[in-house]
């Protein structure tokens, strides 16, 4: 008996674990990317050991790719050398790690996944215990095939009802983060449950799990179900280890009815400041960005295209698919043509301007509406610039008008 976090870890180590225990667990997948791999390589050189399971290692180029500066290119040379030296065949350059690992079938439900990126929690949407760590922890996981964890307590978020028109998973997670707070789930697991989960797409689930770290959580988890298995079907992933929460003991239960939700926006510089878009509607903006591991998937491009179709954007707008697979599917569906015709700059897959390094850096005093997960001061550029977090529909509606706009006003 236990929470989803306790059950996944218990199944992995073969004995019943309870929250609070410190355990060493086998790691199924270890990931690092273009800005963390060089530091991982230094840790392994210091340790004097190689990668224990090269077939379970993944190096992803997503943060500054293609390289925007000589320094970034050098970091990437070091990452390529690391992968080559260690025999890691999975060197992926086709999108954001948290999107392309599942797309390539490299994770399975029940896995323990350790990634040198805080948004590794996104993969909890597949019922995997996926957590972000620093480069030294990841070096140890590469070298030993293991990691140490404190089995986390769990905040349950029970979600029931149906999304009203114009309201999306991003609005839901902004409301959840508002309620729990940016450190309300620190060191804990956030387990999403309730009758609404079955209707949520895998993309929606990834949006929810992605922002678990914005509440301080170690993991964001959703139990794998038929939809998970059908999404992974044909991608060559390993056999799932299917577990459910059984008679769980939660540290807190937060209940949310979808029917009353509205489009939400979180104001610079705090992620937990969500409020209805209509309360801030009319605020002028300088840039819109649609993309990231939070909201760069096919349904997000569909939502943006539906709003922009046949119109011109009023402010500079950047859209970045989370992966080549998303890019290709969006091309086939006509979304990319719609966006480009509307005046949107569609950039190659990756993290895009989320890190403030390329493809849409903000200048002094500029204000952006974005589908990102973080609105920290200066993250996208100048420290005096401001980031507002919202759904793809709200971002697209705001691009159209040049000010923060409730997407229900456009439809």
């Amino acid at each position: 008996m236990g929470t989803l976090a306790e059950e996944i870890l218990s199944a992995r180590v073969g004995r019943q674990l309870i929250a609070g225990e410190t355990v060493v667990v086998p790691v199924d997948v270890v990931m690092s990317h273009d800005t963390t791999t060089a530091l991982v390589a230094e840790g392994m050189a210091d340790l004097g050991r190689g990668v224990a399971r090269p077939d379970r290692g993944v190096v992803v180029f997503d943060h500054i790719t293609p390289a925007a500066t000589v320094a970034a290119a050098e970091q990437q040379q070091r990452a390529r050398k690391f992968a080559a030296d260690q025999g890691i065949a999975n060197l992926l350059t086709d999108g954001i790690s948290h999107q392309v690992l599942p797309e390539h079938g490299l994770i399975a439900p029940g896995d323990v996944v350790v990634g040198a990126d805080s948004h590794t929690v996104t993969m909890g949407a597949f019922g995997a215990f996926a957590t972000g760590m620093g480069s030294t922890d990841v070096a140890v996981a590469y070298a030993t095939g293991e990691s140490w964890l404190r089995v986390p307590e769990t905040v349950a978020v029970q979600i029931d009802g149906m999304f009203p028109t114009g309201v999306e998973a991003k609005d839901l997670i902004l409301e959840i983060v508002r309620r729990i707070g940016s450190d309300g789930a620190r060191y804990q697991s956030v387990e999403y449950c309730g009758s609404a989960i079955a209707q949520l797409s895998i993309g929606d689930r990834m949006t929810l799990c992605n922002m678990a770290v914005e509440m301080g959580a170690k993991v964001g988890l959703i139990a794998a179900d038929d939809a998970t298995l059908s999404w992974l079907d044909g991608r060559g992933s390993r056999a799932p280890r299917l577990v459910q929460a059984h008679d769980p003991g939660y540290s807190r239960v937060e209940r949310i009815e979808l029917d009353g939700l509205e489009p939400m926006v979180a104001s610079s510089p705090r992620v937990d400041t969500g409020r209805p878009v209509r309360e801030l509607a009319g605020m002028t903006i300088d840039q819109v960005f649609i993309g990231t591991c939070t909201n760069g998937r096919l349904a997000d491009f569909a939502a943006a295209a539906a709003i922009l179709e046949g119109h011109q954007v009023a402010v500079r707008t950047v859209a970045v698919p989370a992966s080549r697979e998303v890019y290709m599917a969006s091309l086939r569906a006509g979304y990319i043509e719609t966006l480009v015709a509307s005046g949107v700059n569609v950039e190659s897959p990756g993290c895009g301007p989320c890190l403030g390094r390329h493809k849409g850096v903000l200048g002094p005093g500029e204000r952006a509406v974005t589908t990102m997960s973080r609105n920290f001061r200066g993250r996208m550029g100048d420290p005096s610039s401001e980031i507002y977090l919202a759904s793809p529909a709200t971002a697209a509606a705001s691009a159209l008008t040049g000010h923060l706009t409730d997407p229900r006003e456009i439809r």
Partner: protein
Amino acid sequence: MARAWRFGDFVNTDQIIPGRYNVTTNPGELGRSCFIELRPEFAQQVRPGDLIVAGEDFGCGSSREHAVIAIQAAGVAAVLAASFARIFYRNAINRGLPVLECSLAGTVEDGAEVELDPIRGTVRELATDRLLTTSPLPEFATRIALHGGVLELVRAHGSLNGVCGPSCDPALPAASQ
């Protein structure tokens, strides 16, 4: 004499080392960019042995370990905060940067002369003679700290088994992998 550099609540790793300055693993470069936008004078004026004192959730956000390296390279002896974000906390313990939880850390005056007793885990504010005590390190952190970092622990034990002591359950046989 060591001085305290006071920061507020929710200092994130983007503020400790912004994304535009962490495209390197060179500690010297990272140290020179530490808090470059939040407190541009920090890197020039910080002296070896100074302390950072802060409020809640220090180090939240990105997992970048460059944040710990930058603070260490700047010469900071320890970070006292009311609480720490988990990835930053692990990174600090793993790299041997003392991170001490103290509910009153955010009340130390900016620039105050302070004295750290790393063995007792106490900080004295000299002007007021106030003694701040910190929470004892959790067991895993103590074990890693005693080795001087997690790489040293793995080197000493050949595996991570030293982290949780005798209660630690070794990994399953290879058949289960």
